[in-house]
């Protein structure tokens, strides 16, 4: 009995905080998505499913969602690079702490600062990249103004920024793989590739899943870089789902629509994550667990 009282007493605070700052706002958001609130006036009218119809019939929303695919594709590339670095740094390498720190330090920098910095790097006339290209006799590339290149450029910034973070996660996982497994595999004559696919991957599959989840949800929520570097421009060419939400709220004075967009995003992330779990952990996860049990 006493234990239950203590449990309840200790849980009250976090649960209340959770309700105040997570559950209530989410429900409120859900309610708002059915109104035409303009964000400033105290009054709002109920408009039914109108906002959701607008979400699915506005071409710019789909264009923005398409642009998120660039970030997701980039996230997958980021995972490959990070795993590659992690495996190299997991071996006996001279000065590996220095390399580790160098690769990770990009994650520490404030993302707004990164955005501004790359604004200069990508500048058409005065950016170092284009000055270098011109010196080599190549035409300067419109990094931030070409409708396709702009997405690749901005996605590359997040690649640059988050690779270190992903790598550190992989590194931690790799270090927990018992070295006896590799040794016995080597005695049995397994090649490096066989060791990688049969020992390393199954052992770290949980972390791979985590990283892929971060990559997907991060890709769908890509925002800061695009917002700071181009504000979604030129036109809607680099607009992402989140920059569009901000735009709907503050430029079109339509908080209702932007609430509906946010809710659609929430659902989207849940669905995509569910599918991804099914695909990545197709038996692989259990195998990993079995490995530890054995």
């Amino acid at each position, binding site marked *: 009995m*006493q234990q239950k009282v203590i449990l309840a007493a200790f849980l009250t605070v976090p649960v*209340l905080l959770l309700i105040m700052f997570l559950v209530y706002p989410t429900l409120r958001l859900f309610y708002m998505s059915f109104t035409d609130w303009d964000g*400033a006036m105290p009054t709002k009218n109920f408009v039914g499913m109108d906002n959701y119809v607008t979400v699915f019939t506005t071409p710019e929303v789909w264009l923005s969602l398409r642009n998120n695919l660039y970030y997701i594709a980039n996230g997958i590339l980021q995972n490959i690079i990070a795993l590659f670095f992690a495996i190299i740094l997991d071996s006996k390498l001279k000065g590996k702490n220095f390399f580790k720190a160098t690769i990770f330090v990009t994650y520490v920098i404030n993302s707004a600062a990164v955005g501004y910095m790359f604004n200069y790097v990508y500048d*058409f006339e005065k950016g170092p990249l284009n000055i270098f290209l011109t010196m080599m006799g190549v035409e300067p590339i419109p990094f931030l103004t070409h409708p396709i290149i702009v997405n690749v450029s901005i996605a590359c910034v997040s690649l640059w920024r988050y690779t270190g973070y992903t790598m550190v996660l992989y590194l931690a996982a790799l270090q927990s793989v018992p070295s006896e497994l590799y040794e016995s595999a080597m005695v049995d004559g397994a090649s490096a590739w066989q060791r990688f696919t049969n020992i390393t991957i199954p052992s770290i599959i949980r972390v791979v899943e985590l990283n892929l989840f971060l990559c997907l949800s991060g890709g769908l929520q890509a925002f800061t870089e695009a917002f700071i570097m181009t504000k979604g*421009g030129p036109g809607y060419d680099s607009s992402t789902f989140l920059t569009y939400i901000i735009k709907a709220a503050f430029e079109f004075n339509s908080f209702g629509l932007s609430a509906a967009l946010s809710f659609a995003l929430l659902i989207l992330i849940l669905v995509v994550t569910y599918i991804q779990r099914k695909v990545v952990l197709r038996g692989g996860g259990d195998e990993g667990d079995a490995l530890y049990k054995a």
Partner: protein
Amino acid sequence: MTKRLIAIAVSFALVGSLFVGCGQKAAAPAEEPKKEAAAAETKKEEKKEEKKVAGKLLWSSHRTDFQTTVLPEYIKEFNQQFPDVKIEIETYKDYYDTMKVKMSSNDMPDIWTTAGDKFTREQRQAASVDVSDIAKDYQGTDLFQGADNKVYGIPTGMSATAVVYNKKLFKELGIEVPKTLDEFIAAGKKIKAAGKVGLATAAKAKWPLSNYWFATPDTIAGEIDIKNKYANEDEPFNPDNALVKSYMLLKKFKDEGILEKDPVSADWEPMKKEFRAGNVGMFYLGNWFIPQAIGEALKTEDVGFFPLPYDNDPNTNCVAMGPDVGWAMGKNSKAPEAQKAFYTWLVDTKHVDWANKTGLLPAKNGAKADAAWVTEFNSFNPKPLTGKGDTKELNDIVNKVQFDNMAFAQDILAGKDLNKMFADLNAKWKKARGK
């Protein structure tokens, strides 16, 4: 056992403190009526004894650069007359978004900066005090009307949208102020040939492109608020339409190559610096830019202002003119007497001074600006067009279409097909009107 009891006590204390926090907040509004009552009492006393206005005010402004200079100076001057009024200053960078948040929580500053295009009529009315009695003496107040057609802000000055140019550069290259579109483009090409930017757009920042939506259509059509008419048409955007012509003009500037090398990558701050350094010939903006254009390389006499020659007829000199931002009184002030006193003082005595400091033309009837650029600008015989602002019908359609004019202009500069863009817009426009 005692440990457990202590744990229970501590956790209850923690939970309790949460509720205490909430309780205090809920109690706060109850105090307000008391204060208002107190203010009302002081009001009675003041009638007997004038100039005993007292209270604490909050002045919020969008001019972050004036935070420690002009604003405190004004307050100091005001305090010589009204020593008992304490005024605090707040400036924000994302000013209008911040104000919308304050609006939704009914927490408007006593004096704030309103803007014609940033708020709806309903929002203005809900957030500010009616100043119609003062507004009679000012131009351009139509844009600060609420839904009830009363005026909720006084313009800080008027701004014409025309070409700010580098006189020094024009002299060096032997260029006359262009009177026709062909001359204008020739001038741009000449400046470009000298290795400078002919006509700056700062298109990356987006908002400098909004002139092609707000100002140029009216000047091309030669009448005010031409866009309001489009709200009554299903497919208004054909080649004769003034808005289409306005964007065609932008496209022409790009095709003739008088803009920046890659306009969409040119941002506002860098272009401003380039202009100040003398590397830009012309900038299609409002006259408010003039004080900011003056720097080390350009003196006051080196910056001029002329109407944009939008066609080849030298006698068409229409210039869209509109109020800059306005001063408004926030609703529900805790010291309404002091608020009113400061507001009338600010509007009455500082109007011309503020206009001069911010490069505006005075909006007060009969007030004259004496800056050199004004004299020069007037010598071109500009025909000012001051609109009354967008109608609700137009606003609704634009919001329904989710039309972002600046993104639209960026698309043109990025080389998208203008005909297809207008065809799409026509289709969306028709659909939005059908609802």
